């Protein structure tokens, strides 16, 4: 009986979170990419003075925000929106075969510290596994969990927490 109730609750939670999920609000003080207004950047078209392919700034400019995927509270599933972002990341990583990346998993402040570290691991690995499923060699990807230690947005609001429950792909610079 208990088991049944738990199962039902979990399913409804999943369903609820699936339709509840909104794109995180970008707060004005979000860090700006230095190379922001490049219209539809095609990495191959980069001119010599620009950032090197495979560098973090080159990757961030190419991704236009798709370097980060967002999760619902305590969740680590990859939804359609996340999948689209990860496909862009995978395309980049497959195009620049020297590029290596770290997938960082993060949690919001509304959790206990140890659990948030474990949750960040889950999220980073969910994103990494998705990239691997798209053909990115596992050897070029590493993961790290920061738990709740590195918030992208501060403040104790739903909007801030939504921005912090994330997995961010970052190029490993050489």
């Amino acid at each position, binding site marked *: 009986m208990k088991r049944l109730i738990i199962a039902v609750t979990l399913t409804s*939670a999943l369903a609820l979170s699936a339709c509840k999920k909104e794109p995180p609000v970008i707060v004005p003080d979000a860090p700006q990419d230095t190379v922001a207004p490049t219209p539809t950047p095609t990495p191959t078209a980069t001119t010599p003075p620009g950032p090197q392919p495979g560098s973090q700034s080159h990757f961030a400019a190419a991704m236009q925000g798709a370097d980060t995927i967002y999760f619902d509270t305590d969740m680590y599933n990859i939804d359609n929106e996340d999948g689209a972002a990860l496909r862009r990341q995978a395309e980049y990583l497959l195009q620049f075969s020297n590029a290596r990346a770290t997938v960082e998993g993060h949690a919001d402040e509304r959790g206990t510290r140890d*659990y948030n570290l474990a949750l960040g*691991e889950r999220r980073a690995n969910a994103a990494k596994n998705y990239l691997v499923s798209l053909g990115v060699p596992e050897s070029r990807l590493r993961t790290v969990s920061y738990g709740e230690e590195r918030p992208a947005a501060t403040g104790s609001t739903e909007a801030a927490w939504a921005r912090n429950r994330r997995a961010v792909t970052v190029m490993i610079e050489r």
Partner: protein
Amino acid sequence: MNFRLALVTILTPFVAFAAMPAAAQQVLDLPDEAEDMAQEGEGEGEGTVVTVTADSWNDLGIAIASFATNRDVPTPANSSGTAALGLELSRVVYNDLRFNGLFRPVGPDSLPRPSYDQITDPAWGTWRGRSAEMLVHGYVRANDDGRLTVGCYLYDVELEIELVREGWVVNPGEWRRAAHKCSDLVYSRLSGEDPFFDSRIAYIAETGPPEARIKRLAIMDSDGANHRFITNGQSTALTPRYSPDYSQIAYLSYVDGNPRIYVYDIDSGRQTLVTESSNPTFAPRWSPDGRWILYSMAIAGNTDIYRVPSSGGGRPERLTFSPAIEVGGSYSPDGSRIVFESDQSGAQQCYIMNADGSNQRRISFFGGRCATPEWSPRGDQIAFTHIAGDFHIAVMNTDGRNMRTLTNAWHDEAPTWAPNGRIIQFFRTERGTGNTSIWQVDLTGENERRLRTPVGASDPAWGPVLP
């Protein structure tokens, strides 16, 4: 590091003081009307709110008089000499009892200062006139070898009898420990509980803005004194735990870029990885006998609990096997069982298993989530973070029954027990700023107080009573 204090057995007042009563009278030439010297001041009026609980012993009025000295001589423990040190010793005792909401203490700054020979022969009339029910006296003596002897006496003023006495020989640098031992003596004798003041706390000191917080490993005495930073803040440090003998601290550091548990040796300053693995390790915990370290390790995103001999080099043993998150863990005082958290039901709940990982079963069924369980040193209760909207500190029996919430703030987390299992320490996060501070609450939930720390403070871990 040797933490052991030499215990001095004081047989009778005559034996204890026969050697130098003359000297005492000679040097400490206090007037008979010592009350005239009473300084009203930083005593009771300081403004710390202390709620009195229903416990009857908590209502006891206790006078804590300045400790006397046989001879006011220089000591490395106090630049003004042993007489000034005596006053400081009694202030530490007073603050121990006062800040913990125990009894109704009156401190030395608003009391007459007894002479050295009055320590074993109290001026009963003086104390009865001040409506003190209990009286704490003490002395400090500088020994020829440079060490200090501190004596502590508890008297029942009503009955005009001595209840208990003890003495300790300490190095000058450890004088506060003698005062804490005196607090413990008084507290234990009057409450019937085990001592806890002479103990230490490891925690994480927090500075800087929320988006770039600097987190350093730090240690301090149970009253916040003798504060010391261990790491420099260049890499994030989290979740320290003192080894039961205080010789080592297991904690998480990002020093190599990844979350890893290191075991830091306090004497040598050396630190070693808890286990040689490329996988992230976190949430370290010691077994009560210090022989094992529990830790959580994530492999391909799945976190489980492992144990490894603390002596180093041993082979880790995996204790949990579910695809869910199993994390943390806290041993029962006899080391036979472990309470831990798992989200295998869909959300964080508390589970118990035998120390070898067998016989795992969920114990929390009261609604909300059960996180960061910590077994009481007395064995009968488990403290945890109860998540039901907000985050509160709560306790339950070891079978999960009789859940009681002790705090009611927005975000209280990570309980750690006082060595005697009477007080729970935790950290509180302020909504909006993310500022953290360490708090204590007793098992009634009525006495709550903030521990003073130099900067923001989180992840407290209370160690056992020092030998």
